[in-house]
């Protein structure tokens, strides 16, 4: 599932290097607000799109593409850690 990505070293950025554009700062504020308000059982899971490795491909994964399915979203500290 998801759109396949070109393999490159570029990362999506906005604004000048080392300087947040007003748009980014505004977005961060909004995200902080979301962080305080949005996680609660019985409420909608915040949607996101993130790059992923899946079965030998690099793809973009969007949570809302999984509507109609049960999803387990797992976070963990890091690859090659022990637990």
């Amino acid at each position, binding site marked *: 599932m998801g759109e396949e990505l070109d393999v490159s070293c570029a990362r999506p950025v906005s604004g000048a290097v080392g300087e947040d554009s007003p748009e980014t700062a505004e977005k961060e504020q909004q995200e*902080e607000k979301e962080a305080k308000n949005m*996680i609660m059982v019985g409420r909608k*899971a915040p949607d996101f799109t993130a790059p992923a490795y899946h079965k030998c491909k690099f793809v973009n994964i969007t949570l809302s593409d999984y*509507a*109609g399915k049960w999803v387990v*979203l797992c*976070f963990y500290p890091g690859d090659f850690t022990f*637990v």
Partner: protein
Amino acid sequence: MSVDSMFVHKMWDETELSKMVDGGIPFPMLSDGAGRVGTIYGIYDADAGVETRGRFIIDPDGIIQGYEVLTPPVGRNVAESLRQIQAFQLVRASKGTEATPSGWKPGKPTLKPGIDLVGKVYTEWKTDMAFDD
């Protein structure tokens, strides 16, 4: 999902995880470079620069039904996550007419909430049912 890049995910799957799981990890390994998604979900540790062990069960309507967050040194119990998913699926299939009491697992009795059950739960559920057989 972790803060590692999808490139590191690839190498981890190829060099290590595929030796634990035949064919490698079957689900997408997501990358959250700056911890943005983890921050929104409230599990990103900005001081350490890593995600903590957060696990969210999201139903077909996109509703978070349950979550669990552990500090990094302690691993999850996958069987317990599966049990919770089975319980949420049963409740959903019953359209809320059934509930799973403490200790429920597939095959054990459910409760049918309603006016007749008020004050009578002891007739349906015993404390030893909270534990595995």
